[in-house]
């Protein structure tokens, strides 16, 4: 088994269940647990693995729907806005964007007052010029392990 294949196998196993023990992955790949551990640390260091996290069903803890915010900011201030956005509770994921918006944020929302509050909070952030809202209905996850929703 070559180097890349081990990396891919580790990623595949952890994508399905981030709590899989290194010993178990090692046994499947017929390598030592230390190899898996070293590879895992390297993948994290290189930024291939960004994070490991628990996937919560938002509908069971009081959230109703998902909303996407398309945010336009003053040129060259995307990073500052992104940093603020990602601190908002309820925002699942956010990223810089190239296209019609500068920053995208995807958030879980409890109800309409909550949605309005989130929108206002983003609008009041320095450098934010415009916020566009898209509420998601009947959301289908086709590949849940790639993009965390």
């Amino acid at each position: 088994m070559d180097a890349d294949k081990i990396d891919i196998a580790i990623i595949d196993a952890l994508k399905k269940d981030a709590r899989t023990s290194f010993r178990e992955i090692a046994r499947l790949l017929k390598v030592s647990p230390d190899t898996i551990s070293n590879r895992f640390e390297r993948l994290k260091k290189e930024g291939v693995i960004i994070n490991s996290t628990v996937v919560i069903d938002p509908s069971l803890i009081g959230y109703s729907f998902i909303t996407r915010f398309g945010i336009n900011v003053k040129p060259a201030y995307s990073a500052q806005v992104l940093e603020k956005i990602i601190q908002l509770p309820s925002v699942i994921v956010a990223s810089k964007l190239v296209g019609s918006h500068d920053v995208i944020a995807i958030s879980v929302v409890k109800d309409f007052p909550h949605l309005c509050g989130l929108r206002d909070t983003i609008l009041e952030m320095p450098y934010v010029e415009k916020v566009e809202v898209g509420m998601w209905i009947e959301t289908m996850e086709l590949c849940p392990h790639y993009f965390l929703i």
Partner: protein
Amino acid sequence: MIETTSCIDHHMSENEIDKIDIQILRLLQGDARRSFKEIAKQCKVSADTIKNHYNVMIKKGIIRGTTIVIDPKQLEKKYLVFIGIQVTHPYSDQILNMVKRISGMCVVTRAIGRYDIEAIAIQDDIEKIGITKSTISDFQQVKNVDVDILVDKPLLCPKNFELD
């Protein structure tokens, strides 16, 4: 980490998650590989208690699983893109199904707002993004397609979901 109790009591009845559940979720959100022993130490209860709470949350479906978030750019030199589609009304599920079948689609949804359908997809290269855009544009009833490319690595909220 948990400061107010009145707020948690409210959640407990409404959402059936308690103080320990919240602490478990918070710790696992930051690092899903944390051991039950380590979580137990932080919550000042036994590891078995943590394990039981975790299993109950799995059974109830509150925890759907654990996963790693990878940067597709780093791994396969791929792009994550957001696709917003405007259609003429009334529109059928046909468009939705057509978009769903395009390779690389991660999330496809009906939407209320500027777009009628929104999607997030993984695409191999800029050329592929162009092909995907024209495939969608060619479809009858589609008025406009906007494609935005996510740059840098996507960030995850460190405390997503207001649990407490």
